């Protein structure tokens, strides 16, 4: 092949490459445009339909691997932990009896006074089928619009520990933002001292309660509950415990570092609360 012919074929090749590059770019930009206008529900549902059997199988095996891994590392602490749990169990049993009595008395008094009896929210059981691969701050669950889910609903564990809120709902799956994400904020209050504040996530690593007035005292170890100010999040869901209180000079608000109640690494089954 002569030099002239080679140059011409190279030019043709690079022209084809440039057209290919801009063609693909145009398709992706169109995709972004469609996504922003919410026109990708159908492809999302097809993708879910295709991947859900794999997601469920991998999630199950991943859970087994993770459990085995955790058992291996925590085996040496089992005896000590068992003793502490037995002690806590008997204390909680006693507390439970007292609370049941108080609840019964409360419902009788409410009936006498003619106050409305609060109905518990409807719950939808969902399985975790995937996690956000960048920050771990999103979860995918196998229930969606077809099960009555809407964005903003609270998601809890079996023992009412708040996990997060629903951010996106498709026909048969939904996405949850964890309370530890930097974009999450929830109105809350401390159980004993009744101080209100806002719970925010810090880079997916911890929780902070903000907007606490400097003149209000909160105790370390206190339980933090949801305030119920948000329409779709019920009151008294357990967020965590106060680990530390941070007050800076010349600031009108102080912060509390909160230890989350839920264990975000071992979530498998969750409950979505529909008020």
């Amino acid at each position, binding site marked *: 092949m002569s030099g002239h012919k080679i140059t011409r074929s190279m030019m043709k090749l690079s022209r084809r490459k440039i057209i290919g590059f801009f063609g*693909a770019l145009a398709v992706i930009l169109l995709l972004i445009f469609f*996504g*922003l206008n919410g026109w990708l529900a159908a*492809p999302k549902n097809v993708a879910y339909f295709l991947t859900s059997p*794999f997601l469920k199988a991998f999630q199950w095996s991943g859970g087994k691997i993770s459990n085995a891994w955790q058992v291996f590392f925590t085996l040496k602490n089992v005896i000590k932990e068992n003793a502490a749990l037995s002690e806590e169990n008997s204390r909680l049993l006693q507390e439970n009896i007292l609370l049941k009595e108080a609840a019964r008395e409360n419902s009788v008094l409410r009936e006498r006074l003619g106050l409305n009896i609060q109905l518990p929210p409807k719950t939808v059981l969902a399985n975790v089928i995937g996690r956000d*691969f960048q*920050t771990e701050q999103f979860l995918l669950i196998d229930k969606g619009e077809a099960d009555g889910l809407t964005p903003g609903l609270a998601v809890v564990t079996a023992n009412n520990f708040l996990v997060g809120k629903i951010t996106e709902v498709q026909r048969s799956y939904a996405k949850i933002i964890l309370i530890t994400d930097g974009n999450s904020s929830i109105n809350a209050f401390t159980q004993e001292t009744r101080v209100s504040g806002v719970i925010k996530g810090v880079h997916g690593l911890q929780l902070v309660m903000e907007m606490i007035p400097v003149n209000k005292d909160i105790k370390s170890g206190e339980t933090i509950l949801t305030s119920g100010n948000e329409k779709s999040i019920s009151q008294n869901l357990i967020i965590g415990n106060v680990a530390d209180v941070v007050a800076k000079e010349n600031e009108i608000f102080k912060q509390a570092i909160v230890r989350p109640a839920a264990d975000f690494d071992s979530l498998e089954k969750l409950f979505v609360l529909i008020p």
Partner: protein
Amino acid sequence: MQGALKVIFLIFLCVAIIAFQLTILPRLTIFGVILNLALAIAIAFGISQRKPHFSWLVFMPIFLLDLFDGHPVGFLTLSCWLAFSMVSWLAYFLFKKNEMAAVWILSVIGVSLFNFIFLVLTKLADLLNLSAQPPAIFRSWTVFLIGILMNSFLTVLAFAAIKKLTGHFDFLNNGQAPVIK
């Protein structure tokens, strides 16, 4: 392998990669970093210059991830496509020198480019209120740099796997002269 069977096999593979990425890999975090297998495969194909017959399938895992996890959808694919194109272009020049060093350099460049473009796009989306819930993707410089190093390592491994597999599966190569012998 017949054409239709090849496509089914590759789609099956893509779906398995996605499932692995969304379920197992987030449980195997190291220093708070989750490995990005879909990105590693795309960049590795960019470095190797081996365009499979079904080249759109290279981007299928990242596109599926985008559908599930995009904030907004398309930013992951766009960042990956730009990083892939840049790496493919650079590979023409760098492979004339030391091959192993070139693979490492291109892996680091590809992964860094992806992270940089994605970070800029996400910040832009946040500024323009395009995303209802933009992810808090940036934790700290340390995690960011460790992430780049670990994903670059994964890219090198993916590159080695592609190099090995192209000998066995002819449909991974379109007959173009491979850059790496």
